[in-house]
């Protein structure tokens, strides 16, 4: 049956729409306790004294943890494999707290209400230490050092050509400085974890988790337990966007479970999910572009200061990732990236949809627009003159960029948006109150982690009735991965999707995967499923040939059955399975450890039209066009859905999202009442178009979209606002007071 290119609702839509889907919070184990974590109200302090006496006396309290009860093990919360050597400065519970929201103590009680009450009865005496919130200040030589050895976690330098000389020889040089904010992932399902510690020494976790095999690594390290005794059961994810990964509440839940011998559920409330997990990194970027007399960019220099908060987590990886992307969009002979990841006492920065790319392309695309403006060139034409072409070469690793269709995206987008006509009549529609502006941005994101080992494991087993069991380590964030994987397998095996069962990620009964991040799901997971399905088809073909007593070359899979070409004889999948069982005394099962051979680029060109109210400073994004280089649209409806979600998320980043801290490092706008996320009324008129051009290495030539789709959004909108007002706003979010200040400065 044909499924590729066909819109299908998410395969578990019925469960979800009836409320019958089970998420972690819907699990109630026998005799289960509820955990609560006390978090730090101060940004940096030594714990002088913790008094838990009052809390212990509260009826229904079953266990209390302080740093004295936690293993004294330093870890990095985002280890990607066992020998990951990223800086490790975090403990499950520590004598020192390093940001507002850091873990201090924990309670398990009969109800969440009692646990909450007990938390409020724990008295902590803090000896405050100097706290530092500005990463640039933290880098100064005389700055207070959060750990010995300074606040610089890692500096990264990558360059091609001779950048300084190229700037000297440039016809024109443009510079800018931009900054981005700490952004909450905003998955509607908050962080939650249920833990159990069995008498056999097993640690069991149930949680929405995009990388269960990574959770195993950190828990193994902390509890000195073999992976064979750590079972992480991934539950349905109520959204992730990067947030459902890394060790946050798991070790606490495990400790409470060990102490009580009971199941313990910890659910963060919305404020805790915002403050005590991690956010998109706040960054500051300095950019510089040099051009020659023909409007060609000859030199690019970007320096990024990345605020990690007090723990490294994924920061250094994100620094590396954004760096590598920068070299893949424009064909520029001389380029340099310098990144500095820095410890501060703010909340933590970590992986969020785009993994550093939204920041680097925010900087770059504002800079490119500014350059075009200074040169009096149309920003679309200027980009067209400088973008990479398909199969260009990445100047850093000398590898092919693959089928990079960014120019097609830009061309198509400008047509769909009516870019030229709109710009021609722009000034005529401006009124005293409303200004209108148009913005464009281009960007690229990766597919997987190659050339790093990019491993996923799949297996496919044939049942005797002809149905199949597919196992994959890939996790579904909720955006449709499992649906797409089923479509791929069903298409190749010529069978109904409903006849393929798929096991949810699980370290106990499932197979290994490196983690559902880095836009790996379709590119790596999908390619692995395509490969295993082809192998299964091949094995079945051999058996069908034997059963029909012909050579396998004579067999075709058609109308769901194996047929002899030009002959009436046929055998269905059930027949193949039964023949194998009966005659060959064997089950047909295929298993594959797949390593993705290359890392393609998913490009995109986005266009935004905004209306700015000069009286209130409010921005309304009115129209939006996104053209995405997807390789192949396996499921156009799901693809559109992801892109639409990304547009709204990027719109939030541009216009109003970001945690704001007071001078003591306390977030002023935690919780959904004060932290504004995009609503239905923020949605512009959206038009989406796919450029479909086969990409070698992806399933059916398809590549990723989840992350790529958000990257051009923020710069496209900010470019549109600047176009409307003739301003040079560069600090997101563009809150209305910032806009008014820029208009009436």
């Amino acid at each position, binding site marked *: 049956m044909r499924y590729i290119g066909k819109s299908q609702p998410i395969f578990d839509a*019925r469960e979800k729409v009836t*409320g019958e889907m089970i998420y972690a919070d819907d699990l*109630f184990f026998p005799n289960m306790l509820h955990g609560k974590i006390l978090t730090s109200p101060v940004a940096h302090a030594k714990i002088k004294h913790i008094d838990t006496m009052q809390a212990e006396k509260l009826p229904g309290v079953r266990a209390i943890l302080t740093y004295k009860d936690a293993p004294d093990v330093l870890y990095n919360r985002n280890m990607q494999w066992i020998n990951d050597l990223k800086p490790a400065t975090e403990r499950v519970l520590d004598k020192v707290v390093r940001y507002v929201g850091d873990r201090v103590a924990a309670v398990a009680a009969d109800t969440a*209400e009692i646990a909450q009450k007990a938390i409020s009865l724990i008295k902590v005496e803090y000896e405050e230490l100097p706290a530092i919130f500005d990463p640039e200040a933290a880098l100064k030589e005389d700055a207070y050092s959060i750990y010995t050895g300074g606040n610089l976690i890692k500096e990264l330098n990558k360059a091609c050509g001779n950048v300084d000389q190229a700037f000297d020889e440039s016809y024109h040089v443009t510079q800018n400085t931009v900054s981005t904010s700490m952004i909450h992932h905003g998955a509607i399902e908050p962080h939650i974890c249920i833990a159990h510690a069995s008498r056999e020494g097993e640690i069991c976790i149930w949680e929405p988790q995009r990388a269960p095999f990574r959770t195993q690594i950190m828990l193994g390290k902390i509890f000195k337990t073999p992976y064979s005794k750590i079972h992480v059961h991934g539950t349905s994810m109520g*959204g992730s*966007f990067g947030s459902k990964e890394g060790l946050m509440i798991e070790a606490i839940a495990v400790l409470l479970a060990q102490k009580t011998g009971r199941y313990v559920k910890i659910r963060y409330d*919305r404020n805790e999910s915002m403050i005590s997990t991690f956010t998109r990194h706040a960054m500051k970027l300095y950019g510089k572009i040099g051009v020659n007399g023909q409007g060609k960019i000859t030199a690019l220099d970007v320096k990024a200061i990345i605020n990690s908060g007090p723990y490294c987590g994924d920061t250094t990886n994100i620094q590396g990732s954004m760096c590598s992307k920068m070299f893949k969009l424009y064909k520029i002979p001389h380029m340099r990236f310098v990144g500095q990841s820095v410890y501060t006492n703010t909340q933590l920065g970590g992986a969020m949809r785009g993994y550093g790319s939204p920041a680097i392309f925010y900087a770059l695309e504002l800079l490119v627009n500014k350059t075009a403006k200074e040169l009096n060139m149309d920003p679309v034409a200027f980009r067209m003159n400088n973008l990479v072409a398909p199969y260009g070469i990445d100047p850093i690793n000398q590898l092919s960029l693959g089928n990079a269709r960014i120019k097609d995206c830009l061309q198509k987008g400008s047509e769909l948006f009516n870019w030229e006509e709109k710009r021609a009549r722009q000034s005529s529609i401006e009124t005293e109150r409303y200004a209108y502006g148009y913005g464009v941005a281009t960007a690229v994101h990766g597919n997987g982690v190659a050339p790093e080992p990019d491993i996923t494991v799949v297996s496919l087993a044939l049942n005797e009735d002809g149905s199949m069991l597919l196992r994959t380590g890939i996790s579904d964030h909720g955006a449709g991965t499992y649906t797409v994987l089923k479509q791929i397998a069903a298409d190749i095996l010529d069978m109904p999707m409903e006849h393929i069962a798929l096991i949810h990620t699980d370290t106990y009964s499932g197979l290994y995967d490196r983690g559902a991040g880095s836009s790996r799901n379709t590119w790596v997971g999908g390619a692995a499923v395509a490969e295993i399905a082809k192998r299964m088809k091949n094995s079945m073909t051999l058996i069908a040939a034997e059963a029909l007593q012909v050579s396998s070359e004579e067999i075709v899979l058609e109308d769901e059955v194996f047929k002899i070409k030009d002959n009436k004889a046929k055998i269905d999948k059930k027949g193949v399975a039964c023949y194998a069982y009966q005659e060959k005394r064997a089950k047909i099962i295929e298993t594959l450890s797949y390593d993705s051979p290359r890392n393609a680029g998913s490009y995109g060109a986005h266009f935004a039209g905004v209306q700015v109210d000069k009286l209130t400073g409010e921005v309304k994004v009115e129209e939006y066009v996104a053209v995405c280089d997807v390789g192949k649209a396996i499921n156009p409806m799901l693809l559109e859905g992801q*892109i639409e*979600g990304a547009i709204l*998320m990027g719109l939030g980043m541009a216009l109003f999202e970001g945690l704001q801290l007071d001078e003591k490092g306390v977030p002023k706008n935690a919780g959904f009442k004060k932290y504004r996320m995009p609503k239905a009324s923020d949605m512009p008129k959206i038009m989406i178009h796919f450029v479909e051009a086969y990409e070698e290495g992806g399933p059916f030539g398809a590549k990723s979209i989840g992350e790529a789709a958000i990257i051009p959004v923020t710069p496209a909108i900010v470019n549109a606002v600047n176009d409307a007002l003739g301003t040079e706003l560069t600090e997101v979010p563009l809150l209305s007071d910032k806009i008014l200040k820029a208009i009436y400065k």
Partner: protein
Amino acid sequence: MKSIMMKINGDQYTLEIQDNWTLLYVLRDVLHLTGTKYGCGTGDCGACKVLINGIAKNSCTLLAKNLENHEITTIEGLSQRDKLHPVQEAFIEAGAIQCGFCTPGMVITAVALLDQNPYPTENEIVVALENNLCRCTGYKKIIDAIRLASKKRDRR
């Protein structure tokens, strides 16, 4: 503890509740009607929406003790075993569901809207969704779904 009566999804319940229990707590933790979701607990995301006497309300900010003799419909009460509510069908068809965590609240909101206003304009749909957050879909297909449900109603 106090004893109150409530009708939930057509069934009459007598419940022993504490004064500070929210309706969401009663639904999820006491009755294990877990289709209604917790997203914020502060009345700002709509994941916990239920129908109370036909009106969509956030159950996380309502005290159960004040709901004596109220009629409550949760997401579980909208479908039958063999038949989904037309709004639910429309959500599936329009691709309005991704992670599904906002979905019960969205469906409840849509049902309340269409019961009051069977042929809403796009703007009326947007206004009705003002208190429902979805981080996955960007709302477009949710709005499409509600339009579709309205259209289907026409055909029935």
